[in-house]
């Protein structure tokens, strides 16, 4: 009697241990845009704000991760206006450019920089390989007539876009 009870209990406990807990997931193509480094303007003279490192600035760095080759374009647009600033005494001349800073696949991504398309402040890259790419963006804003920038905080936006092909 006691042996039978033990066998029954053992069977029940076996059933309990056999219970499965599933973990479900799906993998799909995607593009992830990450802000790696926020830029900072240096102020080498009264009428220039620039992200150039030699002038005390910091370049904005954006990272793109893609999980499917030939599925996305990366478009990065350097700033051409301030998003916040004190009142400006004159018009501002903007310059900006984006270049590839680092790549995770030295073979598949080697041509990204040479094959990019540039228009206005925008650089467009064809993401032909999977992996991560870091882009650095430079920006400079020169006040017209060599007039001095007023004291205060100046910020602008780099637009990073991932557009499905």
């Amino acid at each position: 009697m006691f042996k039978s009870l033990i066998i029954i209990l053992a069977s029940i406990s076996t059933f309990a241990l056999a219970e499965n807990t599933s973990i479900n997931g799906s993998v799909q193509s995607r593009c992830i845009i990450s802000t790696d480094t926020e830029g900072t303007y240096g102020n080498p003279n009264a009428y220039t704000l620039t992200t150039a490192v030699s002038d005390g600035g910091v370049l904005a760095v954006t990272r793109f991760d893609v999980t499917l080759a030939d599925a996305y374009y990366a478009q990065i647009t350097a700033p051409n206006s301030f998003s916040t600033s004190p009142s400006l005494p004159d018009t501002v001349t903007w310059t900006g450019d984006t270049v590839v800073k680092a790549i995770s696949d030295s073979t598949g991504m080697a041509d990204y920089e040479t094959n990019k398309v540039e228009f206005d402040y925008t650089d467009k890259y064809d993401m032909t390989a999977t992996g991560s790419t870091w882009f650095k963006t430079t920006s400079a804003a020169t006040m017209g007539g060599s007039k001095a920038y007023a004291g205060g905080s100046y910020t602008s936006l780099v637009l990073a876009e991932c557009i499905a092909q």
Partner: protein
Amino acid sequence: MKKLAVVLLLVSGLSYSHEMTPTYPKWKRAHLSGILKAKMELFNKRNDVEYYEIGVFNKDFEPVPFVSAYSVIKLKYLGKVVFDVFINSTDKSRVVYICSKSKLRKEDLRRTAVASRICSKFKD
């Protein structure tokens, strides 16, 4: 040292990213005749962003009328939202992109920031 660099790289990647899926959505019939809907998912891993603006565009990135629960979605850091985008079926042929764009609040801007926009494409 290399391990530390990799960890830092991963941590930095986890902190400030924005993603939207699927890359190639499909239109499905909504419960109302003449209306199509597409289901999208947005994930906010940018701790500097709380709002994302949804837009529907043609091939030239001109806006196309659409309806969604919110055109600007509030999404906390590490939050995920599934949302439907509805269009008139007569607009189906000209809709090419659904995009989400990060919206930065003026008072949160301290430096030259990055606005991110991800666009999914209708291929059929």
